[in-house]
C-alpha cells in the first residue's frame, strides 16, 4: 500500500542531492554549512581519539602479557602519572578547541547577515504543519500546509508555535532543530543557497504519528517565487459545478478551508492550492490522484491515529473529491 512512498522519497533524494534525505553532514547555506563543517571536524577529532586510545589499549594489552612472574610488587607510578597528565593536557587542548569552534559557529549562525525579508509563521499540530504567509496588509495573508515555499538566497525568519504538544521544526539540509512549544514563540531562520526541494521532519516525540510528521521546503528562484506568491494570493480556481465540489462541501469543509468557497474549517490543513503541494498527509505520500484516493479511503491504516477520520465515502464520491482537489492549482 505504501509502495509509492519510496518513489516519493527517491524524488526528494535526487532533489536534495544526497543519498539520505535527512542527512545533515552535506548541509549547505549560511546555517547548515557551518554546522556541517563543525560536525565533520568533531567527527575527525572523535575518530582520532578512538584510534589513538584503541592503539594505546592494544599496546598495553600486548605489553602486559609478556610477564611470567605475576607476583605483586611495589611499583613506582611517578612516570605513569606524568603520562596521565600528558594525556589529560592534550585532551584539554582539543576540548577547548572544540568549545571555541562551537561558540564561533553559534555566533556565526544565530542571526542572518542581512535583515530577513520574509517572515513565516509555522504552527505544529498533531501531526502536520500550518504555514502562514503574512502580506503587506492582512488581506494578503494566506495559509498553506506541510510545505514551505521560499526564495533562494534570502534569509527567512520562521516563527514557531504549537497548537497542542511540543514539536520540533527541523530541515536537516538547511540547519538545526528548534522546538515548537505551546505558549511560546520560538524564532529561527534559514536560508537556502540552492534551488530545490528539501525534506523537513518533526524532531520531538509528539505521540502516535511522530514518525509521519514531515514537510517539504521548496526553494524557488526569485521570479518563480514571486509568481508562486501571486498565484497563492488568488482564491482557489474552483468551478462550483464540478461533482467533487458538492461532496467536498458536505463531507470535508467542516475541517478544511478552500479560500473563495464556503469551506472554512480550521481543524485540518488549508487546501486552497492543494494541487501545488508535493506531498499529502504531512510528507506521507507523494501528491498523486491515486494516492489521494488511497488516503481518503484508508486514512487510519496509512496514518494510525491521524485526526482525519475515515469517511467511508462511495468510490465515485472519493474519485470526484480527489479530482476536484487535484484541480486546485
Amino acid at each position, binding site marked *: 500500500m*505504501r509502495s509509492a*512512498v*519510496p518513489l516519493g*522519497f527517491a524524488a526528494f*533524494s535526487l532533489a536534495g542531492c544526497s543519498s*539520505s*534525505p*535527512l542527512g*545533515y*553532514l552535506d548541509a549547505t547555506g549560511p546555517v547548515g554549512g557551518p*554546522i556541517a563543517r*563543525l560536525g565533520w571536524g*568533531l*567527527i575527525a*577529532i*572523535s575518530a582520532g581519539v*578512538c584510534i589513538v*586510545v584503541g592503539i594505546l*589499549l592494544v599496546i598495553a594489552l600486548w605489553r*602486559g*602479557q609478556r*610477564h611470567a612472574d*605475576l607476583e*605483586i*610488587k611495589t*611499583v613506582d*607510578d611517578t612516570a*605513569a*602519572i606524568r603520562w*596521565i597528565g600528558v*594525556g*589529560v593536557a592534550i*585532551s*584539554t587542548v582539543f*576540548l577547548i578547541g*572544540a*568549545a571555541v569552534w*562551537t*561558540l564561533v559557529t553559534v555566533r556565526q549562525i544565530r542571526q542572518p547577515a542581512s535583515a530577513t525579508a520574509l517572515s513565516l509563521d509555522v504552527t505544529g499540530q*498533531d501531526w502536520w504543519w500550518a504555514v502562514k504567509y503574512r502580506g503587506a496588509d492582512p488581506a494578503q495573508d494566506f495559509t498553506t500546509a506541510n510545505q514551505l515555499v521560499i526564495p533562494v538566497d534570502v534569509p527567512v525568519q520562521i516563527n514557531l508555535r504549537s497548537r*497542542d*504538544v511540543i514539536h*520540533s521544526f527541523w530541515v*536537516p539540509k538547511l*540547519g538545526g*532543530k528548534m*522546538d515548537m*512549544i505551546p505558549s*511560546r514563540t520560538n*524564532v529561527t531562520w534559514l536560508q537556502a543557497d540552492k534551488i530545490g526541494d528539501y525534506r523537513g521532519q*518533526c*524532531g*520531538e*516525540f*509528539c*505521540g*502516535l504519528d511522530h*514518525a509521519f510528521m514531515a514537510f517539504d521546503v521548496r526553494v524557488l528562484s526569485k521570479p518563480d517565487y514571486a509568481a508562486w506568491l501571486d498565484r497563492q494570493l488568488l482564491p482557489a480556481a474552483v468551478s462550483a459545478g464540478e461533482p467533487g465540489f458538492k461532496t467536498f462541501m458536505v463531507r470535508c469543509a467542516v475541517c478544511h478551508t478552500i479560500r473563495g468557497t464556503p469551506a472554512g474549517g480550521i481543524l485540518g490543513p488549508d487546501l486552497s492550492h492543494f494541487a501545488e503541494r508535493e506531498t499529502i498527509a504531512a510528507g506521507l505520500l507523494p501528491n498523486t490522484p491515486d494516492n489521494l484516493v488511497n488516503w481518503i479511503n484508508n486514512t487510519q491504516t496509512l496514518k*494510525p*491515529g491521524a485526526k482525519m477520520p475515515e469517511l467511508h465515502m462511495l468510490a465515485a464520491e472519493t474519485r470526484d473529491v480527489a479530482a476536484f482537489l487535484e484541480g486546485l492549482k
Partner: protein
Amino acid sequence: MTIGVDQRAAADTRQTLLDIWETEPGLYGWLATVDHKTIGIRYLCTAFFFLIIGGVEALVMRVQLAQPDLKVLSPDAYNQLFSMHGTTMMFLYALPMLSGFSNYLWPLMLGSRDMAFPRLNALSYWVFLFAGIFLYVSFPLGQAPNAGWFSYVPNASLAYDPGINMDVFALGLIFLGISTVVGSANFIVTLLRCRAPGMSVNRLPILVWGTLTASVANLLAVPAVSLACAMLWLDRRYGTHFFEVTGGGQPLLWQHLFWVFGHPWVYALVLPAMGIVSDALPVFCRRTLVGYTLVAISTVSTMVLGFGVWVHHMFATGLPVMSLSFFSAASFVIAIPSAIAMFAWIATIWTGKLQVTTPFLFFAGFIMLFVIGGVSGFMTASVALDWQLTDTYFIVAHLHYVLLGINVFPVIGGLHFWFPKMSGRILDDRLGKWTFWTMFVGFNAAFFPMHITGLMGLPRRIYTYPAAMGVGWLNLVSTIGAFVFAVGVLLFLINVAKSLRAGQAAGNNPWDAPTLEWATTSPPPVYNFATIPQVASRYPLWEDRLNEGEDRSVIGEAARDGMVLDRDKETIGVTPLDAEPNVVLKMPGDSVLPFLLSVGMLVLSFGLLLQAIWLVAAAAVCEFVLLALWLAPMPHDAVEKVEIYD
C-alpha cells in the same frame, strides 16, 4: 562489652556470633531479614530480572525496526514499549543493580558487620520491588506509560494522554524515589560511621567513592523528579496548572525539573560502575590502580560538574544563546575528569602483568566502549552540532554506549568477579569468555550503526521509517546485533545456573585480590568478620608484598585480640574521616516492618492511582501505625552506647 583479650576458642566465638546474627528460617525470616548480603543479592537478582524484561522489550522493537515500513507493532504499542524500555532500564535496572553491588559489598569492603540502618536497607529493597511491580501493573492492559521515560508535557498531560498510562508513571516514580532516597541516606551514613578502625577516607575502594558520590547526588536530584511527577499527577487529576498552558503553566518547567534530576542521575548510573572497574581491573594487572587519588577526585568532580550540564538536553528549546553557550562549555569540561579515569585504567594495564580472565575482558572491553561513548558525548556537548544531532539515532547510539558500555559491561564483569564471594563458586571461565565476546560483538553490531543512521538523519522514537531513508540495511545489522547481544546475556545466565550447581570451589580469595571482602569466607558468614578488622593500608591483603610501610592490618585469626562484639547485635562506629573507633553501635534485629510498610505504600499508590479515597485513607492510617511501631522508643539499656575511646 568485649574488648581486649578474648580467650575463648574461635569456634565458640563464631557460634555465638551466628546465634546473634542469623536470620531465623522460614517465611518470617525471609520477609524480615535485614542482612545486607541477602538484600544485596535480592537487589542484583531483581535488577537483572528487570534488565531481561527491558531487553525483551528492546528486541521486540528491534524486530519492528529491522526493515522499513514494517507493521509488527502499532505506533501505540511501540510508544509503550520504548517508554517502558527506557523507564525499566534507567530506573529499575541500572541504579538498583549498582545498589545491589554496594549493599552486598560495602560492609565487607569496609570491614563492618552491616549497613548503618539495616531496616532502612530492607525498606529500600522492598519499596524498589513494589514500585517496579507498580510501574508494570498497567502493562498487560495495554495502558503502560507511553510518553517516553522523559515524559514531556503537554504530550503526557491528560488532554493528550487520557488513559491511566501517565498516572502509573508519575505515581510509580514517586514511589520508587522513596527507595532511592532512603538507600542513598543509608549509604552516606554507613560511609561516615560504619567502617573498620583505620579505614580512613584515603583507603576506601573506588567503588565506595563511586556509590558515595552517586548517593549524595541522588539525595539532591531525586526530589526534583518526585516533585515534577507529583505536579504532573496533580495537573492531570486535580486541575492544577503547573505545566498546563491554558492556566498559565509552563511546559519548559517540566523539562528543567526532569533534567536537573536526569543528568546527575545518568552519572549516578555510571560512577559506581566505573568504581567496579577501578577496583577489580588492577587485580588482573597484578598491581594497584595507577593514580588512586586522581581517580577518586575525578569521581567526585564528575558529579559536581554533572549538576551543571542539564540544559544540554534542552539545546533546541529556544533558550537564550548566551546561557546555552555556558552549558555547552560545561559539557565539554566534564570530559576532563573522565579522561583522567580512562588514562589511569590504560596506565594500569600498560604497567601491569596481565591475567586475561573473563572479568578482565569485560573491564578492558569497557574501556573501549567508554571512549566511544565519551567522544559521541563530546560531539553532543557542542550546542551548534547538537541542534542537528539531538533526537536522532546518534543520541540513541551515544546513550547506549554510555549506559550499556559503562554500566552493563562493568556490571557483568563485576558479577563474574564477585560471584565466587557471593556463592562460594567460580563461574566457568571458558563460557565466560564466550559470553564476553558474544556480548561485545553483538553490542557493537547493534549500536555502532546507529551513529551512522543518526548522522543520516533518522529521528528517534519513530515506530517505522521509509525505505528511501536508505537506513534499512543498517537497521537490519542493528537488529541482528541486538539478538547476538541477547544470546550473550543468555550465556551468562547459563553459566550462573551451571556454576551454582557444579562450579569450582572458590576459597576465600580466588583472584588474590587486595581488599577486605576477600579476607572472609566465600560466601561470608552472616556477621561478615568474626573480629572487626583493623586496617592499616589501602590494600590490606597485599601489605606484606607491597611492603609500603611498617604497619600491618589485623584481620581474621590474627585479629583474635581485637573487637569481637559478641554481647549483642553490635558493630563498631568510627569517626568520619580518620576512622578512629569511638562507639559501639547497637544494630536492630530482623523485622517484618519494612516489608509491611512497603506493602502499605503499594496499596497507597494503588489508592491514588484509582483515586479511591477510602483506600488511600486506610493505607495512610496503617502506614502511620507501622511507622509508630518502627520508631517506638526501645528500652533504655538497648540503646546504651559504650564509649571505648575518649
